[in-house]
Every structure is written in C-alpha cells, then in structure tokens.
C-alpha cells in the first residue's frame, strides 16, 4: 500500500484511539476538576469496564444463548454502571475518610489500582479474552488512482475499515455531546460546575458536596468504563490493559488543561491521532517516550496545561 492510503488508515486508527481516549480522559478531567484529586486508579476503571463487558456478554451468550448484539448492548449498560458503583464504594470507604487530601489520595488510589488489578487477575485470569462485536462488516474505502493517465476511484486491496470502528467513533461523539449537554444545560451539571468553582460557597448554598463528589467520581469511572466497552471488541480484555489508557489520559488531561473538559477533548483528538500516526510509521516506544517527555515539559513550563486556567494551589 502506498503512503497515502497508509496515512489515512493510520489516521482512522488514531481516530478510534482518540475517541476512546476522549471518553476516558474526560472522566479523569471531571474528577480532577471537581474533586481536585488525581485518581491513579482511573486506568483500572477502564479495565474493569472491559472485563465486565466480557463477563456480561459471555454470561448472556452461555446462559441465554443471546447473540453478540444483545450481549453488547447489555454490557454497554451494565459495565459502566457496575464500575461506577465500585468507584462510589471506593469513594465512601477511602477517599471521603482521608478528606480528599491530594497527597493521600494519590497514595490511596495507587493502592486501589493494585487491588483492582490483582483482584481481576485472581478472578479473570492472566489471559486476554476477546469480546465479539455486535456487527462487523468490512467497508472498502476508495482512493484516487491514476489509471491510463486518468484519475479514477479505485479500491486498493487492504484499504478499508469496519462498520464497528466507525460506530465507535460515532458513539464516542454522541456520549461527549451528551456530557456537554449535561454539564451546560442541566441542573445537575450546574451543581457540578458550582462545586468545581467554589466548594465552600456551594456548600453554603445547600449543595450536598460529598454526595456530588461521590456522583462525579462514579461518573468519571463510568465514562472510562464506557470507553472500554466500546473498544473491547477491537482490543481484547486483559487485566493489565489499564496502564496505557492511564498514561495517555494523564497526558491528555495535562496538555488539555487540568480541570478543563473541553480542552481535554481537543487534546485527546490531537494525541490520539498523533499516537496512531507515529506508532504506524515509527516505533511505538519512541512515540511514548516523546509523549511522556512532552507532558513533563508542559507541566514544568506551563503548569496550567495548554488550555486550562491556572490552578490556585
């Protein structure tokens, strides 16, 4: 395949990464923006979403003979909800008790990371398990080629995508629009934004801040899990799959601006596409090295990220 189609394919793959990343990172950004804590276990919520999706679809298929489409829809509903419940439980048991102190939260969430990861290892096992996509038809993509001196639309062999991959991108866009609507146009969103701006003032207005925190923590986890459910038919479910999304989400949230969900989405698109393209044409490890260094440098020289407002702390 020539460079042109290759690049487009890389961009497509990058778009899927970007889509899932936008969801996951949005969850992390929400938590950081409103709770002002860094959740190091965020990648494990992602992993939980994928593992639960496998569990739901496999159980439905084995016990009720349901097809992959039914299993997928069920997973799409159940996995994020269940993950949110786990997150809310963690919030009540641990985070609330340490008063959302930033340093202790990081230590506690590191602990949570290991607990979730290893508990999954013990129950799910160390293998990667696939989940079937609800639909998966190949779509050949056209590409202009020169035939006999004329430009014609040809269909190069190997140049195509699948309907499911396009669905992932579309679904992520829909969810993000939904999130934006929630934040901007609902009372709940208003409450969340108020708590983010000034916690004490919000409390003075009668907003149950601890409940909002629990809700937001659950919502952040649910977003990550949702991203994982969308991507698990393409990747596979594996107990270690939380590491990469965590690192990438960190990078996105920091570059997009700690606390700015809009900036996060923009950054996710940028980074997802870049990651996709660089990984295809260069070494993936080199891409990660550059990305990691970039994050550190952005934080050192522009602590508020590229789009965020300066932190008061």
């Amino acid at each position, binding site marked *: 395949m020539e460079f042109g189609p290759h690049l487009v394919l890389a961009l497509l793959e990058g778009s899927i990464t970007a889509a899932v990343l936008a969801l996951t990172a949005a969850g992390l950004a929400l938590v950081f923006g409103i709770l002002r804590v860094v959740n190091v276990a965020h990648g494990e919520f992602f992993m939980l979403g994928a593992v639960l999706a496998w569990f739901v679809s496999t159980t439905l298929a084995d016990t009720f003979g349901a097809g992959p489409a039914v299993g997928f829809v069920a997973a799409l509903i159940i996995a994020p909800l269940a993950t949110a419940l786990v997150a809310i439980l963690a919030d009540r048991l641990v985070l609330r008790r340490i008063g959302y102190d930033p340093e202790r939260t990081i230590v506690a969430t590191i*602990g949570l990371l290991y607990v*979730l990861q290893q508990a999954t290892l013990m129950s799910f096992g160390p293998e990667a398990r696939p989940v079937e996509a609800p639909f998966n038809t190949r779509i050949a993509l056209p590409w202009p080629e020169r035939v006999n001196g004329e430009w014609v639309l040809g269909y190069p062999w190997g140049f195509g995508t699948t309907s499911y991959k396009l669905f992932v991108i579309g679904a992520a866009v829909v969810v993000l629009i939904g999130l934006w609507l929630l934040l901007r146009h609902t009372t709940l969103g208003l409450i969340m934004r108020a708590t983010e701006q000034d916690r004490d003032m919000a409390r003075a207005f009668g907003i149950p801040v601890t409940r909002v925190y629990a809700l937001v923590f659950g919502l952040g986890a649910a977003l990550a899990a949702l991203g994982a459910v969308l991507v698990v038919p393409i990747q596979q479910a594996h107990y270690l799959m939380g590491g990469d999304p965590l690192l990438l989400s960190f990078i996105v949230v920091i570059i997009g601006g700690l606390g700015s969900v809009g900036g996060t989405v923009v950054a996710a698109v940028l980074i997802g596409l870049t990651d996709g393209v660089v990984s295809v044409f260069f070494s993936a490890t080199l891409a990660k090295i550059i990305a990691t260094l970039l994050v550190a*440098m952005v934080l050192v020289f522009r602590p508020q990220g590229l789009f965020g407002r300066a932190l008061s702390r």
Partner: protein
Amino acid sequence: MNDARGWLLHLGLLAALVLAWFVLPAYHTGNLARILVLAVYAAGFNVVFGYTGLLSLGHALFFAAGLYGLGLSIQHVGLGVLPAFGVALGVSALIAAMTGYLALRTRGVAFMIVTLMFAQTGYLTVLYAGRWTRGDEGFVIARSARTLFGLDLADERIRYFAALVLFAIVFLSLAAIVSSGFGRALVAIRENEERARLLGYDVQRIKWLAVILSGTVSGAAGAAYALLFGYAGATFASVQYSILPLLWVLLGGAGTTIGPLIGTVFMFYLVDFASEITDAYLLLVGLALICLTLFLPRGIAGELRRRALPWLP
C-alpha cells in the same frame, strides 16, 4: 546526632544486624542482604519524601540509573567494580540534578506527575535501548566480574556484609545529615515552606540539593543491587519500583531514620508470605497502601515517635 540515645539506637541496630548473620538461617540472611540494599533505596527516598515533604513518584529513575550505570559499565565497557560504582553514583547524581532542577519548578500534584513522567521516560528509554540493556529480559552480570579486592561478592557471607557495610554507611551518614543544619532546613521546608523562605533560606536550592542527595543514595542502592545480585532488568526502572520505596517509607515511618529499614523488612516478608498463597501478591501491596494512608499515615516508627519515643531521630 546530639542525643546519646540516638547513637545507641543506631549502633545497636547495626550490631544486631551483624549478629543476625550468625544467628539466622541461610534463607533469612539471603533475604536480609536484599532487604538491606532495598532499605538503602528507601532511605534515599526518605530524604526527599520524609524530610523535605516532596512526594516523588519517579525515584525508579535514580535506582535504575545506578543499576544500569554499574551494570552497563561492567558488562559493555569492562570497568572494574569500584570505577563502575563511581560511574553509577555520578550518573545518578547527574540525572537527579537535571530532572530535579526541572521538576522543582512545579509543586504538589504537578511535581508528582512530572517525576512520574521522567521515570517513565527512563523506563521507556531502557526498553528502547534494548540492544545494550536487553530490555525487560535484562542481563546477568557474571560472577567473575563481581569481585572486589579479591573478595567474591556473590558469596553469601561476603554479599551480606557488603550490603551491611553499604547500609551502615548510608544509615549513619543520613542520621548525621538530618540532624545537621541542612537536615533541619529540610524539615522546616516540609513544615512551612513560606516561613522557611521568609527566614532567609534559599528554598529552591536546598530542595535541589535534597533531590541530588536522595538520587545519589538511590543510585548507590541500584548499583549495589546489580553488583550483589548480578542482574539488571527493565522492571527496576518501572513504576512499580517508584511506588515500592513510597510504600516502605510510609509503612516504616516517613521522616525517621529507622523507618525505611522497618518498612522494607515488613513489606518484604509480607510479600514473601503472600507470594506463597497467590500470584497476585501485589494485591497486598495495594491493600497495605490504602490501610496505611487511612489509619497509619505516620508509619510504624512515626507512631512510635509520637506516642512513646519523642527523641527518635
């Protein structure tokens, strides 16, 4: 150390460790040799975390700098043990100086993330430079290359006492440093940085020196680990090895001199015990972190100091 009780405690502990070789069975002395080297790493981390109050999530970078500084010098350059150790110390100090300078431009959460990112970069670079480092697989340093003054460092007795000598040097030096003016300045910065600055201390420079000291000690531990156990692998540069000293110091007591050793001993045997039951021993690490930050934020020695022995250095 001005206090006679402090001296008695430190020297008594060292004497007990000498005695341990003759009293304990071979399995435990083998473990202790490893524990002592890792306790040096924890002590290095303690300088920055316990005494200066900076939560670094990237100390694996310094440990790995020492590990590979010595390992690669012996393996590929053919240096002798002492010059290689010198190289390791120099490399760790240099890396600590450079990354510290950049990282110290940030505070709090940003500092944690920046240090984490630098360490990740180090880890990825170790993988990328696989031609020399053999990446995750690592390389073994021949027993014949690990001799010092004619002593075979792989021999169990010599290895134990070599580890003990290193530990004793670091233990006593750090005890002296933390009770000196410099050490007190570190504590002042930890307790109230603004006030320290107001009192005229060059806070940035003092923090930077603390990072260099911490990095060099951690590098010494890494070099000793490669030297005494004859193996260098990328795992030692991974996030896990940044989290472990945090765990050891938190458990043993941050900001105490005996804390690092206590924490390392405890955790080592806890993990040892857990590994016999399950593959997922990291689960215990996670639970330990959560419980520590919830219930025992000062660690064992820290609580001891608060409740019974206020003179504990």
